[in-house]
């Protein structure tokens, strides 16, 4: 079913080489300093891997969502933070592709072409546990030919390092039923106050910044979805990023399993390689089974996106993110377990993977909320 074509094979092969040769050796340092790696950005950009989804007409490679998922997976196998960088770029790109008019696309998408290192920051929108509403911590008010944005504690992925931001803000509910608008905002304009970058438990090589919006003036033409449809486009982008999180989780789990298997082969206790012992074999069997299931659902979902079956894709993306992130959590926790005391030490990569995996359960809606969404979509009940 998932036969790769020649182009996909070549892309993945080159991604694998770049990741193994150039990114993997840096992961430990990235992790320790908790700082953004400009070098990883340079490596990804110069190899044309930073914005694989960018449409051809704006100078991109425009791979399918399926191919993109496999790229994310391949990178996350070694470094979830670097995979997150691609995911954030893709989210920002998709918001523009789906909703912006031609002139905005020209202005912003072109900046991402070729070996560009331009970074998009994307603000976080939260799905609500018990309704269809998406909520953003920022509020937008229309004032003549511009919007005024307010809000505290707006978290923005890639925030402090980005060149421009995709910001979600709630508008007065009476104006539009679901009330969510998406804006393109240049960095460095007054009113956009970068409070701090969050010190996080996992994916420490990625940036997650807290902004306060203080009378931030955004010209009306920078509103994406001028003709409405803001809510459904945000929902599509959010669904896509759930899918990407699933791909990232699958890669992360795969990487952790590989570490665990190779360790189990090397480690002997009670006169035998521990890989002989049933509990170790069971853990590995469950890892592999979980990963394969999660991977298949992820790929299946990617196809739905590629075919434009949005409605179905939305529920599937939630399911893929649920199973993939739960699998990643279980696999990484068991990988630490297989490596015993060594697994608990910073010298080995699995403790980092375990912390990273926890974030995949949280990103794009915690799994509790994801379950509410799946349940709601399937039962039709809110």
């Amino acid at each position, binding site marked *: 079913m998932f036969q790769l074509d020649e182009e996909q094979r070549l892309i993945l092969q080159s991604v694998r080489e770049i990741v193994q040769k150039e990114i993997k050796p840096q992961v430990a340092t990235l992790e320790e300093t908790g700082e953004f790696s400009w070098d990883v950005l340079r490596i990804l950009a110069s190899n044309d891997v930073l914005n694989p989804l960018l449409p051809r007409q704006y100078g991109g490679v425009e791979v399918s969502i399926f191919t993109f998922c496999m790229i994310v997976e391949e990178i996350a196998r070694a470094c979830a933070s670097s995979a997150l960088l691609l995911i954030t770029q893709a989210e920002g790109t998709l918001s523009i592709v789906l909703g912006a008019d031609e002139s905005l696309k020209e202005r912003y998408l072109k900046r991402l072409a070729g070996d560009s290192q331009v970074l998009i920051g994307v603000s*976080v929108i939260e799905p609500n*546990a018990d309704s269809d509403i998406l909520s953003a911590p920022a509020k937008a008010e229309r004032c003549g030919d511009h919007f005024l944005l307010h809000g505290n504690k707006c978290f923005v992925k890639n925030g402090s390092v980005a060149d421009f931001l995709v910001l979600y803000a709630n508008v007065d509910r009476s104006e539009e039923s679901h009330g969510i608008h998406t804006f393109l905002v240049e960095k460095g304009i007054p009113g956009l106050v970068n409070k701090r970058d969050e010190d996080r*438990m996992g994916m420490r090589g990625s940036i997650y910044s807290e902004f306060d919006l203080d009378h931030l003036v955004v010209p009306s033409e920078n509103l994406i979805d001028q003709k409405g449809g803001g809510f459904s486009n945000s929902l599509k982008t959010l669904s896509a990023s759930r899918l990407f999180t699933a791909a990232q989780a699958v890669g992360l789990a795969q990487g952790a399993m590989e570490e665990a298997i190779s360790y189990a082969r090397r480690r002997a206790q009670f006169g035998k390689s521990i890989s002989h012992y049933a*509990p*170790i074999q069971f853990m590995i069997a469950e890892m592999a089974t979980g990963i394969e299931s999660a991977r298949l659902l992820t790929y299946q979902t990617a196809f739905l996106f590629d075919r434009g079956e949005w409605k179905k894709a939305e529920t599937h993306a939630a399911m893929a993110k649920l199973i993939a992130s739960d699998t990643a959590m279980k696999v990484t926790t068991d990988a630490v377990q297989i490596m015993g*005391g060594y697994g608990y030490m910073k010298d080995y990569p699995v*403790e980092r993977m375990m912390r990273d995996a*926890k974030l995949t*359960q949280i990103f794009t809606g*915690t799994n509790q909320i994801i379950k509410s969404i799946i349940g709601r979509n399937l039962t039709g009940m809110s």
Partner: protein
Amino acid sequence: MFDQTGFLPTKKLRDFQNKIQQMAREKIAPQALGVDEKEFFNREVESLLWDHGLLTLTFPERYGGYGKGRTVALCLAVEEIAKVCASSSLLLIIQAVGSFPIIHGGSKRLKQNYLPQMSKGRKLVAYLVTEPTAGSDIASIQTTAVREGKEYLLNGSKCFATSGGVAGIYSVLAKTSEGNGNSSFFLVDRESPGLSIGRTESKLGQRGSNTTEVFLENVRVPAENLLGREGEGFLMAMRDFDMSRPAIAAQALGIAEGAFEAILQFIKERHTFGKSIGDHPAIQTLIADSATLIEASRGLAYRAALLNDEGKNNTKFASMAKSFAGDAAMKITTDAIDAIQVLSGYGFLKDSQVERMFRDAKLTQIFEGTNQIQRLVITRQILKESM
């Protein structure tokens, strides 16, 4: 929150628990985040634990011990402290584990010499069993102790020693002959020539505990530092586990309760209790399941501890308690992060103590026998009972 009276047979124990709870909340809790972040051993907390007699709980009474009910007392203290800082509670556990071979194997003279040094002189003790190639398989240690006249000569490398770099005294497991039943514990002074501390490990969790390598190179100890008889080391380690595994279970229980309290705290701060749970159907199962796991862990942990205090065989319950409570703590802390996220939105990941508790909890599945080994022990015990 949880009713513990069923597990606390005496008023003395209840008072003891209340006192520690207050101390932990007032004095240890405020240190927990910093200790984790900077990954250092906090001497202030250590002093506090000495002041409260918590580092000598399992000693004979005249050296500061708790007396009757000591395993339950140890578990209570560990649980209360683990609710706010698992690293600090680990210090109690390892002190009890490390001094076990001395208390139960040391000659009268040795004890008269060392126990006051430890209790009055406030010396920490580390437990040197694990080696780079001998973890679960304790019997495969390579460290040797060779009798030479009135001394033993010790050689070997130990790793993952909790308190390794801060202890004054070491209980060291070494091989005293070839073949089975060949290992023995020795008391070794920090100052002994030939003993050196290797590197300090950086860890996922319980980062306020000090974990190091310890090397023994031609270390000479007097023959009377042999703890128990030659060849009794393995047996002694197993008996030590009967005390330490309930304590690890209590630690896991405390971590889980800490995470659970954090969720309730969030709910209380944000909403009136009844309403908020209804607001978040996603949280309901999580609260109910966590509370159930916590009570089940408590039942097992204190049953195992009580049996030990009553002098009855508790090996099966100790292993059940350790593995069940460890798995439960891992699940509860993992879920608790989601709960906090659901309730509070982004930006609380690192600030909330729950994130640390999640990392701390993982250790309880690994040390003092991994949870895989616990299952072997449980099965072996059950088969033995049914023969």
